[in-house]
């Protein structure tokens, strides 16, 4: 009893304050129409807020599925887009020339001399050797090895890469190579120096190889010069995609590649 009195002597004002405040708020909420409705509504407001927070978490957990379905959707759209410009389809079974297979990058390097990527698709999804890999904004690489579930891709950021490209609106083919160890720039060579290019022009694939379709955006011209005694430009190209930061890519299956290659081999001989 004495302890309680001592406690009250020390904290009496706080206790009285808290007790009487609670008491008056009980009165307010029970006997005042306005405050009562506000009280009920705002408790609903906070309950709703909690609900929406929870559902946001739930949607965050399902982001994976959403991502996958969006990638699939993207792939179908890209398929349509690429095939608009593709040559007339073969009269055989295939109605369109290019298939697009969405894939996820599960490992990639970009700061070595020869860079590689690994994708989570394989023969099960229809990926074959020598298929091109692109992202929404540009080139990624070429499938080199493939097994049932994975594909090994040689990045365009590779000393070996030679990709046939053109400056937009000109048909002259050039080779896109990677010289500096900078993942943002590549070099376009063997464009003749009489072609009137300027900084900012777009570089696209020209579809001369069987790997990439026509008109895939590669990048823009950042700088160019003519070496002494050379008749070709040396063009520095700023890549339009950020390869180190790419997560979703699309493997392009050119259904007529075999046919075209076989014919070219016979012709060359």
């Amino acid at each position: 009893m004495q302890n309680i009195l001592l406690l009250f002597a020390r904290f009496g004002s706080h206790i009285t304050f808290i007790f009487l405040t609670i008491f008056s708020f009980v009165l307010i909420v029970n006997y005042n129409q306005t405050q009562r409705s506000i009280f009920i509504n705002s408790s609903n407001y906070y309950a709703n807020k909690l609900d929406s927070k929870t559902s946001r978490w739930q949607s965050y957990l399902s982001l994976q599925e959403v991502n996958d379905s969006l990638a699939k959707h993207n792939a179908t759209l890209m398929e349509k887009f690429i095939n608009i410009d593709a040559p007339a389809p073969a009269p055989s079974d295939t109605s369109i020339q290019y298939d697009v297979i969405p894939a996820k990058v599960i490992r990639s390097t970009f700061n070595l001399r020869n860079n590689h990527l690994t994708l989570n698709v394989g023969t099960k999804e229809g990926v074959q050797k020598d298929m091109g890999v692109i992202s929404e904004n540009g080139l990624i690489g070429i499938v080199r090895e493939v097994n049932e579930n994975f594909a090994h891709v040689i990045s365009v950021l590779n000393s070996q890469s030679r990709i046939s490209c053109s400056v937009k609106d000109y048909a002259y083919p050039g080779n896109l190579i990677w010289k500096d160890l900078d993942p943002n720039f590549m070099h376009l060579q063997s464009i003749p120096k009489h072609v009137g290019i300027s900084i900012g022009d777009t570089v696209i694939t020209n579809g001369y190889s069987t790997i990439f379709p026509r008109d895939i955006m590669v990048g823009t011209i950042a700088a160019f010069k003519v070496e002494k005694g050379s008749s070709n430009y040396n063009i520095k190209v700023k890549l339009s995609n950020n390869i180190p930061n790419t997560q979703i890519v699309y493997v392009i299956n050119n259904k007529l590649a075999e046919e075209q290659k076989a014919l070219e081999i016979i012709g060359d001989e």
Partner: protein
Amino acid sequence: MSSALIRNSIRFFLLAIMQVLIFKRVAFNWGDFAFIHFLVYPLFIIMLPIKMPRPLVIFLGFLIGIFVDLFYDSPGVHASAGVFTGYARGLILDLLEPYEGYNTNDSPTIETMGISWFMSYSSIILGLHLFYYFSVEAFSFVYIFEIVMNTIFSFIASFIILMLYLLIFRPKR
């Protein structure tokens, strides 16, 4: 002690009656501008003896609040404001305590404490009371604009009335 009890009891009823019979009916409305309300009963809490036990101050704040509430048909609103003001008064007294401490057992007045001390003391308490009262009345900080406007204009109006009261009655102790 008994004279202090009588004086404060009289002040209690005088201020409460003034509040509910006179100032409740006074309203300045110019169109949408209805931010002026007169609350004079906080003066009762302001004028309670300095050395009075603080739980008792809080309880008396509750009492005058609930008394006013009976006439305002708002059970609890003035009472919670009175409780808060009674609690805040203790903290403000600590805050404004002179270097040598309070050397009076009576009510704080202009004569005993000096005009500047009394002005800051009473205006802080009145301002806190009004802000708390209008917050509880609106019961949601969605109406923060109305709360602040009400507080500012009612503070000016009520403070003038409080000063007039002190001028007229000139409480000595």
